[in-house]
């Protein structure tokens, strides 16, 4: 097994004390005793989820990244390895009986084709198979050996102190161009930790009062911009999928105003494309919620969290949704067309984002 610190290939006998013989660093895992990962595999997942140390991430996002890898390796072993091995037995027997290499090769190819056809026709099963409790046990082992991953977001114990009253009073005179409403505090923490608000002149909050130290001021500031653009980012759950319409209709939020509310969250259509990233959990979807029967049926059995997406991908998709809303409004397009959600999510979607080049260009500070 390779050491994730010095890359030394340590044989089992060498690493029995749980340390690398070369760098003396402690190993977190020992696959021979049943651990589901090696240190290098865990480190690779950390590199992936943090985009090589450039993006801060939550524990849930790491959990998803590792659970996805675990289920991939397990399912590929089960679904491909044994059928392939078993599938090659008849051609082998045929070859031994007939001593015809051509016939044996033909039978081998046919067998392989049948296995692949079987895989293509078989519906993938829903549900992540690695519980949070099991993940956290392994995470503790990693932290004991390697320390807290540098880009992991650790929620503060207790709420932050609010801004001084004088500052809060002043801030309520101002507003921002955009606001992102999330359906859970964890998503707010994720966006704030990655400076999404700072980069996009954008408030980030949940509708039910998170983060508590800033929420009262943010709520007042929202009312100062009649042309505010609101984006809603949520899990594929009954509550998440109806958040945009509730904000749009509620008189306490944007009911009766001209504020545009754009849903950029996960919906059943996204979750259906990524069954192995979903949780199997019953939930109740109200018939009056405005969701279609098909969506209600799906959300009654499964849910998909935003944490299933690669953090970098999630933020860049949100950047892109905002850029596209901006260009729609500057070209006079109907801003309400985005209200059903114009962002195509997918855990394995491409990572090329057009808005990036523009943000790299420079010189906006000057020339009057």
């Amino acid at each position, binding site marked *: 097994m390779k050491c994730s610190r010095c890359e030394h290939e340590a044989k089992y006998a060498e690493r029995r004390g749980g340390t690398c013989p070369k760098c003396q660093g402690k190993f977190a895992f020992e696959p021979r005793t049943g651990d589901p990962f090696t240190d290098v595999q865990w480190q690779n997942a950390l590199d992936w989820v943090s985009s090589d140390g450039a993006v801060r991430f939550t524990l849930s996002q790491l959990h998803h990244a590792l659970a996805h890898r675990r289920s991939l390796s397990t399912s590929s072993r089960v679904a491909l390895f044994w059928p392939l091995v078993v599938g090659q037995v008849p051609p082998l027997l045929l070859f031994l009986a007939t001593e015809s290499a051509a016939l044996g090769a033909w039978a081998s190819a046919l067998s392989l084709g049948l296995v692949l056809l079987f895989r293509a026709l078989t519906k993938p099963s829903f549900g992540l198979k690695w519980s949070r409790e099991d993940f956290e046990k392994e995470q503790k082992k990693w932290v004991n050996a390697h320390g807290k991953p540098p880009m992991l977001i650790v929620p503060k114990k207790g709420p932050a102190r609010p801004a001084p009253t004088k500052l809060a009073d002043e801030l309520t005179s101002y507003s921002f161009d955009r606001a992102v409403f999330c359906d859970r505090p964890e998503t707010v923490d994720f966006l704030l930790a990655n400076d999404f608000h700072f980069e996009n002149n954008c408030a980030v909050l949940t509708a039910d009062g998170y983060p508590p130290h800033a929420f009262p001021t943010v709520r007042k500031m929202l009312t*100062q*911009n009649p042309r505010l653009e609101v984006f809603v980012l949520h899990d594929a759950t009954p509550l998440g999928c109806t958040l945009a319409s509730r904000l749009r209709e509620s008189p306490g939020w944007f009911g009766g105003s001209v504020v545009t509310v754009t849903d950029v969250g996960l919906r059943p259509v996204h979750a259906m494309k990524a069954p192995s990233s979903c949780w199997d959990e019953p939930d109740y979807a109200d018939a009056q919620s405005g969701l279609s029967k098909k969506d209600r049926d799906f959300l009654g059995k499964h849910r998909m969290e935003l944490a299933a997406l690669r953090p970098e991908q999630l933020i860049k998709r949100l950047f892109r949704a905002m850029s596209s809303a901006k260009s729609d409004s500057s070209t006079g397009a109907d801003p309400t067309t985005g209200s059903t959600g114009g962002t195509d999510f997918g855990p394995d979607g491409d990572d090329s984002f057009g808005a990036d080049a*523009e943000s790299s260009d420079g010189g906006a500070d000057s*020339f009057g």
Partner: protein
Amino acid sequence: MVERLVRLIESDGCARDGTTVNMVDHLGDLGGLDGAYAVAWEETDGSLHLARDPVGARSLYWGRANDGRVLYSTRLIDLLRAGAGHSRELDSGGLLAFLTTAYVPGERTLVRGVSAVPPGVELIFDRDGRGPLRRPFALMPASPSIYESEARLRERLRCTLEQTVERLLPHGPDGPDGAVAASLSGGIDSSLVVALAARRRPVHTLSITFGPEHRDEVEFSALVARHCGATHEVVVVRPEDILTRFDATVGALSEPNGDPLTVPNDLLFEAAARSGHRVVLNGEGGDPCFGGPKNAPLLLSELYGDPDEPFAGERAYLRSHQKLWDDLDHLLEPGLIGEAERLSLLSIVTPGLCDPRWPSFLDRLMAMNVAWKGAGHILPKVEHLAAKNGVLARSPLFDWALVRLAFELPPELKRSGSIEKYLLKEAIRDTLPERIIERPKSGMMVPVEAWFQGPLRAFARERLLDGLAHRPGFRRPYLEALLDKRLTGLRPRRGVKIWLLLTLESWLRQVYDSPS
């Protein structure tokens, strides 16, 4: 009583009533002057006095020769050539500031032993060269506690705008047909200067484009020029212009300035000079003085930040420059700039963010922006690039009279809701098309990202990998990742970072490698 004037270095100063003054008569009362100036004089007791206008529209540096004599100049490079500075040693704090902001704010410079004279402060050295003592002669006014009505303030602002533009127009005919030249981006600031100038004189406007393949604001600048009846000239900036002018532009700037607009500005001033103009008006100053968009992220940072986190506001201010603060550990070897230097840079921000003269956070930010970005970045840039081309840059919105008034306006009239520069827009609403007033700020985007992936790629690689990478303290792997588009992160901002490092390399070559 001034008996012996040693040197009047640069003077574009004038009395409050707009009349041109003899600076010699006002050396004891610089606070009563408006305009742009840098002066040095000696009094009867042999003391040397150095002063710069309160906004920093003219530059002035000082340092000591080996024998302890005080030397001064408007250009840092000239001062070094005259022998100032401690063995021309690079100042690590100045370098950190430059990498973080693209300029060096405050009194520090990139060279140890050479300092900038702070705006609005008279430095006094005794006859033996001891000092300096500091005598502030013009302080930024604090916000008044009782405000006039919005309508009266709007009227006052309009009146001051009109008077300032009038005062800064060149005396007598300047260019062909008596037209005055003005740079015009199509944003609100340069547009309002053009509109107010056009009510008094014919105006010749100059805009920049980077070719049809890149986004520009020519549509808006043409609209303003048409609206104001100005003759309009569009200067095309091509990648080959960067290749041929880069070093000369960096050299002319005296202190390095990592803003990608330096070469485009240089071309614009050259075009103005070619048309026979001596003075070019510009719209610099609208953002720092009247509540521009760059304040928004810092307001949000204050709102969401944890007041118990040390240096959170300071860090946000430095990061808002969007340069290399987050990349320092990858760019530099650990020994070059230590934690102490970073803490020192953060500590320089603290007094500005906590200045008790302004109860409003927005005003404190604006005061910092005027002192840092204005005096350290924007004004020296236009000053030196205009001088390179033999013209004089004048920035009405950075004029001391308007800056004073800006700080008397209540903050909620600078940023109202999400409307930036609210009162400034209201004050000149009748002079410009609605489309210009209502359009969001977009800034002049130099297509550095595309250039460094295409036509300027070889230039950047040669300068950074054969040059900067070999200088002590700079890490080659980072420079390679930057050039090869391998920098990770949500917004790598490769183009502006490459430009900034190319500027540094060019400046180091000119100052250290071929100092003659």
